[in-house]
């Protein structure tokens, strides 16, 4: 596999050849920031288009096809419009918190990007508690949602925010436990180590039964974490108009809209990392020819491709299932997923201890 660290190291040495060290680091930070923002925006726009097309296909429709070739420019047009749409300021609200909320939501998804393994060596920061960091920052998002719901001074948004709070607190647990199961299996919290440990075989294969159980639970909990159907209670269209972001207009609403899709990508990205080898190509022990061919496909393609496939499954959920009710949703988590998860963790520990894995 091509190691991107060669490229990044080259940039570093090139910059430091004529700059003092502090300036080099500043420049690199700016470069990374720009690259990140660009990826962020493009991915979100792509995802919006992707969801609309997939949804149309499920509903026997065509989906956007007028703006640009095959409607590819549709989400760009939406973005331009959203950028210059009026920002309505409300009376009787906490203006600062009201404005802060969308930024918190977007910040949470932005921070999570820092540890995603895009490719071999193509990772912003790889530190020893990468996964832990990921879980920690992704919970900031709920803060933004709660703030949005509360500061809008609207009863619908408040109910939406409370639902969201209950949902996040519950499903964070499932996400944490299923991630923990895989961390036990990998023996490390570092993202780089986890990916490298899947060099021979992806965890979903090598971890067999407990890994598959953990993956299914992760997928359910991940759907809930991103507030998508059938868990889209905080923004249930037919119940709460637009839920917690009812009062937001213009680009502030745009942030919520983008963050929803980015969170979808992050959840799929983490699933890719934990179960499908991150950027690691599909390798089978002993199939050397096959493995070599797989290596020709760049790691970035592998990572994004796998993430998109998993997001497709999550989108599939949304356009198939009806919505759950709040008590049913909580019952699903606390009465079913949590016990299964705990049992699964024990199972995984046993498997690791006795070495019954591939």
């Amino acid at each position: 596999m091509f190691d991107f660290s060669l490229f990044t190291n080259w940039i570093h040495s090139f910059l430091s050849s004529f700059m003092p060290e502090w300036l080099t680091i500043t420049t690199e930070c700016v470069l990374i920031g720009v690259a990140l923002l660009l990826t962020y925006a493009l991915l979100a726009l792509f995802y919006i288009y992707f969801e609309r097309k997939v949804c149309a296909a499920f509903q026997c429709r065509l989906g956007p096809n007028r703006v640009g070739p095959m409607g590819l420019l549709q989400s760009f047009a939406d973005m331009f419009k959203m950028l210059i749409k009026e920002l309505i300021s409300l009376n009787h609200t906490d203006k600062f918190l009201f404005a802060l909320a969308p930024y918190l939501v977007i910040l949470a998804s932005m921070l999570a990007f820092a540890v995603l393994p895009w490719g071999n060596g193509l990772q912003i920061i790889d530190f020893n508690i990468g996964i832990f960091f990921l879980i920690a920052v992704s919970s900031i998002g709920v803060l933004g949602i709660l703030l949005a719901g509360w500061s809008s001074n609207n009863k619908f948004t408040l109910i939406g925010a409370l639902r969201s709070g209950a949902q996040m607190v519950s499903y964070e647990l499932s996400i944490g436990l299923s991630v923990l199961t895989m961390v036990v299996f990998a023996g490390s919290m570092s993202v780089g180590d986890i990916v490298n440990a899947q060099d021979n075989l992806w965890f979903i294969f090598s971890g067999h039964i407990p890994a598959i159980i953990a993956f299914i639970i992760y997928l359910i909990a991940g759907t809930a974490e991103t507030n998508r159907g059938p868990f889209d209670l905080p923004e249930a269209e037919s119940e709460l108009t637009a839920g917690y972001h009812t009062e937001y207009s213009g680009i502030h609403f745009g942030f919520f809209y983008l963050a929803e899709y980015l969170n979808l990508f992050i959840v799929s990205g983490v699933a890719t990392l934990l179960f499908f080898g991150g950027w690691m190509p599909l390798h089978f022990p002993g199939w050397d020819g096959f493995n070599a061919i797989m290596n020709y496909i760049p790691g970035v393609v592998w990572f994004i491709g796998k993430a998109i496939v998993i997001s497709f499954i999550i989108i599939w959920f949304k356009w198939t299932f009806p919505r759950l009710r709040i008590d049913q949703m909580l019952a699903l988590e606390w009465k079913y997923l949590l016990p299964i998860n705990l049992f699964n963790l024990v199972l995984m520990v046993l498997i690791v201890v006795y070495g019954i894995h591939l």
Partner: protein
Amino acid sequence: MPYEAWKDNEYIESLVKELQDNGANVVVGSFDKLINWGRSNSIWPLTFATSCCGIEFVSLGAARYDMARFGWEVARSSPRQADFIMVAGTIVHRMAPVLRRLYDQLAEPKYVIACGACAVSGGPFKKSYHVVMGVDKIIPVDVYLPGCPPRPEAMIYAIMQLSRKIKVEKFFGGVNRQEKQEEFLKNHPIPGVED
């Protein structure tokens, strides 16, 4: 959609001509073009329906007519996030202040399509004691769409006309919407239509 493909409304054509007569700054003009491209291609409706026309609006979203092709399928339930309100159905006295409020809650730029005979003029309920005779008594209307209810094809045409109207707007300096409707009509008489 290429602009030339649906150049069939003389009234708007004359408006365009008038606007372009004054000329435009190269930079501002191209910015305007970009913005208008975005706005006219992304018009999100507010989910608003009072009666029969609303069901035809649902049909418009369904597989046969599929308004998603044009990017109009993102129907928002919150007026803050929608671009235009399709007044689909009769508006009665009790609903009038509510509609007015919904219109006020829409974020600029906002547009209104009066959809169906009832919204245009009161339609079959002209003699009723409780029906508002045309929504233009309450809110400014951009496109009138007759029919009872209009067929989905007609609705597509109406929204396309709206999209055209947005294309000739100016974002920087003088948005033609800010003129009052009566004044605007006085300055731009429609040929063949009195008053």
